[in-house]
């Protein structure tokens, strides 16, 4: 597994010469660029989830007014996504009209990409995730999915950082993450119908698989992941009295939108369950949102007494 998370960004820039530079910059900075056809920006925003940000050129529109209008529309649709403006002369937003300036989080120029790197560090890669945590979450989640969804195969993409708040699919579970070094939520998201079809094939004896079966299964997978996370990274420290600070979560069903009350980016893992019999698939997204506290310097893996380890599923008699 690639230890460093990546982030998907939309590239709204028509300068062919500069696009080559952006491509190479993305390769060096863990970014996955997505080029969008002019006029398709809003539909791409509607259909793409898990974006980290947008690189936008001041020459993107046919006119300056059009460039400003498109930026305003994008910002209105997804205010949580940082839009970084490429300027031709100077890396500044100061000379833009106020109405236009507020659509962007920062500016850069092609001749000095260090500014862009700095902005990415500020807006997208601003939380550091220990490699052991990324690796562990991937292993725990893969194992939980495999144990509950046999004989489906499970594969995973490189973990990535997202800033959008769009909900994938129709079904999600939430569980609080509580530890001395992190507080927040884990959210599993998936699509109901493909999951029901996979389950129906998996349990061929049971004729009537419905949404409640999928609810229960997702709940148990969530439970297994949180249990694995706790056993590996929290241990008995988790018994400390929980802190009382909480913030409201907002779910807007109309817009398939969820906010955890923070501007922090989210750590996302995408898993694909595939049925080897017919190749059909369903995606499961695991998002980790450390909205209440994040202190990776205190992160540690629980050292277990190897001699005393008992395999999961085995009975440890007292």
């Amino acid at each position, binding site marked *: 597994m690639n230890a460093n998370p990546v982030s998907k960004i939309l590239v709204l820039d028509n300068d062919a010469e500069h696009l080559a530079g952006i491509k190479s910059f993305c390769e060096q900075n863990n970014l996955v660029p997505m080029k969008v056809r002019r006029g398709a920006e809003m539909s791409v925003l509607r259909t793409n989830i898990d974006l980290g940000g947008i690189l936008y050129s001041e020459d993107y529109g046919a006119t300056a007014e059009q460039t400003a209008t498109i930026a305003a529309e994008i910002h209105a649709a997804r205010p949580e996504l940082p839009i970084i403006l490429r300027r031709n002369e100077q890396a500044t937003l100061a000379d833009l009209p106020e109405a236009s300036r507020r659509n962007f989080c920062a500016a850069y120029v092609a001749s000095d990409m260090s500014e862009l790197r700095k902005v990415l560090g500020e807006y997208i890669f601003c939380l550091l995730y220990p490699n052991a945590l990324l690796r562990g979450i991937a292993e725990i989640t893969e194992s*939980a999915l495999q*144990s*509950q969804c046999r004989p489906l195969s499970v594969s995973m993409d490189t973990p990535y950082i997202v800033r959008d708040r769009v909900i994938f699919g129709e079904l999600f579970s939430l569980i609080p993450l509580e530890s001395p070094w992190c507080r927040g939520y884990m959210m599993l998201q998936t699509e109901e119908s493909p999951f029901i079809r996979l389950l129906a094939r998996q349990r061929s004896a049971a004729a009537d698989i419905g949404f*409640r*079966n999928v609810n*229960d*299964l997702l*709940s*148990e997978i969530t*439970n*297994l992941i*949180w*249990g*694995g996370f*706790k*056993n590996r990274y929290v*241990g*008995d420290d*988790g*018994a400390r009295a929980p802190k009382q600070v909480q913030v409201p979560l907002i779910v807007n069903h109309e817009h398939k939108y969820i906010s955890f009350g923070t501007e922090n980016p989210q750590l996302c893992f995408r898993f694909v369950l595939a049925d080897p019999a017919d190749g059909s698939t369903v995606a499961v997204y695991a998002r980790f949102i450390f909205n209440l506290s994040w202190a990776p310097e205190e992160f540690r893996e629980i050292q277990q007494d190897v001699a005393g380890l*008992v*395999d*999961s*599923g*085995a*009975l*440890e*008699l*007292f």
Partner: protein
Amino acid sequence: MAQILVVDDSSTVRDEVSAFLRNAGLNVATAVDGKDGLSKLQADPGIKLVVCDVNMPNMDGLTMVEKIRGELNNKAVNLIMLTTESSPNMKERGKAAGVKGWIVKPFNGPAVLDAFRKLAS
């Protein structure tokens, strides 16, 4: 009369464990949380083994087993925890309450069937 009571708030786990044990010829009852588990146990004197989750709503599994030994004064029934938890403190608490064994999920029926048969007989 059931021999084994499976207590878990997850219907996925209840269905998986009880189906496996029934297929192995054992009589199984189920309960959805600790409170339900206590009342099912009181109502069925045939139960010899309780297989119980820890994290459940209304009443957690460790509180339930403490009540079985304490309030119900039932020292005879065998108690096994089936949970995602593997914290030494929790295991100690279970041991102190008279829990006989601990299984970290996911459930692996063939690995525990012989033990379950003995404890349920």
